[in-house]
């Protein structure tokens, strides 16, 4: 295995982690958006808020890391993808900013109207971003990105059945995993009222995801047969693992063994991402540019690997600490106090 493949592997790893964390946060936003009116949605929303707040920024950074890895390690691929897919990626960006703004504002917005607006921004961004990122993946997967500065079609590259289905699948994936996470959270906090609520949502999203997954395969069969063949011929063990794990998490969605349920669910998503990666290998841009052809200078790749190892040493302990403290209940804003300030308290100006 050479340096270019290793860096490509690191990139796939980062995408995997983003899919299991960042995309799941968007899923939480999706449930926030669909939680219903102010009164009915209050309890699930406060749980979502409580669960996502301490970790969303850390989860989000994986995306930035994927971007910088791509332009450093595979500059021409990055340039080709970004310039051809300008529209969906700019829209994904719009969603990211809307959601982050909504999230940052809602913490301290004093008036209910503004909190309501922030909730909408959060929700809309939560749909827009994974959908657009998904269509971009679909565009790459179906070989619609030629090498060059905006060399592909700006519209049809992502506005086609295959890409749209991948976009919807991404939304469903986020919705499914986050429903599992939120179910686990409701168990951890002992909020029984939400157990059935999120179990139902997890299962609904799971069914939708399965149908969309079949849809993606069918679309791929007619759209880009060569890629379809690669997915089913080399990707099938991973697809099977993914299916088995997702089915397992579906089954586990009673929420009793919460850690196992989350782990199995995330593992299913990870296997799906790797099935895509394996099907596409050795192409960065099917079927015009391979990992070797598109790779940066070996010196750069070597340093990227060295830095990645260094980063593991730095980040992994910190990340474990964050999740550990979070799960121990040492972190997290309290929804009732941070959202509805009362007038108690001594003078302190």
């Amino acid at each position, binding site marked *: 295995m050479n340096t270019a493949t290793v860096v490509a592997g690191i990139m796939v790893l980062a995408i995997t982690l983003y899919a299991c964390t960042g995309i799941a946060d968007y899923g939480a936003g999706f449930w926030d958006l669909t939680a219903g009116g102010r009164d009915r949605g209050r309890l699930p929303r*406060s*749980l979502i808020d409580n669960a996502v707040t*301490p*970790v969303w*920024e*850390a989860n*989000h*950074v994986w995306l*930035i*890391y994927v*971007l*910088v*890895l791509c*332009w*450093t*390690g595979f*500059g021409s691929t*990055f*340039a*080709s993808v*970004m*310039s051809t897919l*300008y529209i969906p*990626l*700019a829209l994904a960006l*719009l969603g*990211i*900013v809307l959601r*982050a*703004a909504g*999230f940052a*504002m809602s913490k*301290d917005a*004093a008036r209910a109207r503004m909190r309501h607006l922030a909730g909408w921004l959060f929700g809309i961004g939560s749909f827009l971003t994974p959908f657009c990122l998904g269509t971009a993946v679909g565009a790459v997967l179906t070989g619609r990105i030629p090498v060059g*500065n*905006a060399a592909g079609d*700006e519209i049809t590259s992502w506005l086609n059945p295959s890409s749209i289905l991948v976009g919807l699948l991404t939304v469903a994936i986020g919705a499914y995993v986050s429903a599992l996470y939120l179910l686990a959270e409701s168990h951890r*906090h*002992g*909020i029984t009222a939400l157990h059935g609520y999120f179990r139902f949502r997890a299962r609904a999203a799971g069914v939708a995801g399965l149908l969309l997954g079949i849809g993606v395969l069918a679309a791929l069969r007619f759209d880009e047969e060569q890629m379809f063949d690669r997915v089913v011929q080399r990707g099938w063990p991973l697809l099977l693992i993914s299916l088995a794990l997702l089915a397992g998490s579906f089954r586990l969605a009673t929420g009793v063994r919460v850690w196992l349920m989350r782990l199995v669910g995330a593992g299913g998503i990870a296997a799906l991402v790797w099935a895509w990666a394996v099907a596409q290998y050795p192409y960065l841009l099917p079927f015009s540019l391979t990992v070797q052809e598109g790779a940066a*200078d070996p*010196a*750069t790749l070597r*340093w990227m690997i060295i*830095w990645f190892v260094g980063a593991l040493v*730095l*980040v992994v302990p*910190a990340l474990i600490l964050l999740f550990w403290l*979070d799960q121990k*209940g040492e*972190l997290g*804003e*309290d929804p*009732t*106090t941070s959202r509805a*300030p*009362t007038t108690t*308290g*001594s003078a*302190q100006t």
Partner: protein
Amino acid sequence: MNADLLAAPAQLLPAREQMALTLMFHIIFVPFGIALPTMMLIANYKGLKRNDTVALTLARRWSHAAGLTFAVGAASGTVLSFEMGLLWPGLTGRFGEVFGLPFAIEGILFFLEAILVAIYIYGWRRLQPWTHFWLGLPIPFVAIGGAFSIISANAWMNMPAGFTMDANGQITEVDPIGAIFNKALPYEFGHFLVAAYMAAGFTVASIYVVGWLKGRRDRYHRLGILIPLTIATVLTPVQFVVGDLTAVAVFKDQPAKFAAMEVVTESGTHQPEVLFGRYDSATNTVEGGVSIPGLNSWLAGGSVDTYVPGLDQVPAENRPSNVTIVHWAFDVMVGVGTVLLLLAFWFFIAYWRKRDVPNNRVFLWFAASAGVLTFIAVEAGWIVTEVGRQPWIVYNILRTEDAVTNTDAGTLWISFSLIALLYLSLAIGTITVLRAMSRRWRKSDETEDELAVYGPRPALNEVES
């Protein structure tokens, strides 16, 4: 605008405008990301050491504001990392392998910062006080490391290094470490780091000075002024030295940028220092402005006999496209710096005599406006660096028009308008929230939970059931 820019592709202008808007927005949040954690940790340390609840309250509130600015900065930083490809594929596509490594480093450091900030902000209630402090302590260092990485990438664009180009324009022999430690890095980093601490320091202090002016002269406001103002004023004289070194280095490394900054039209010795004025690119002359004989040569090389190359030495198509803007920005930056230097000395003398916040109203008004002033200087300094480098995106190697995306100009104008609208609402939102936050603090209608800096909070289920 000269004929050269008119010949440029139609998408260049919206791409540049969008990049400028997003960078100028992002740069407002960077100083807070770097310096606010330092201030909050100083307050936290003071609070724990002396069992000082006022200092702890300050630390808690500053961490709260740091969290908000960090979140908005994260969002606008994401915009920038997308835009590197959305707008400038010709830069990242070709040179990403040379100067991309610092971005990968910054990505990880930012990640680490996000984790530590989350632990710190959300750990106030239940973590052990000293554990909480120690977990927060790495934040300023990680932030400085992140700034180092980004400045390194920017410095590389000004002083490209770490690769060779063969006859066909192909990049060979990439040395990413050489690219990181390029020649412009030390002074760009030093200059920006000090600027960041000054900007955040003066701004935070100015907020409490306004309260002080309104008669809220308690210990809370005193500390809120003294901690950040001390940091900012101590660094102001330092910035003069660093800034001067920077200018001299730019004079040597990027003569065209220096000529634009100081609006030197004809090369020669005994160059005058021209304050403001208007540059005419057609005739290469300056209209108006105040001229101080010989000062420019003296500042550049320590003697009036220093030879300063002018814009006449640069072929017309390679001259910075907006000399007047670069020159004005430079004068504004230096002007603000000089004014702040006066403020710093005033504060030193007054504090040394009375050991308290000076009571002179002129001083207080002066200090109240210092926050806005430093940010004007930060923006102006950014304009000098970035607009002064034009028409090059990579100095003397890659022209900006060759790096821009081929995406349809109409699409770019639409996205520019959307981004502008979005950023306007983001700015309004941020200010509204920060104001709401301070109003709530001022009205002291905090919940007991918020007032208890350290201490257990009710669990979610206890509250909900």
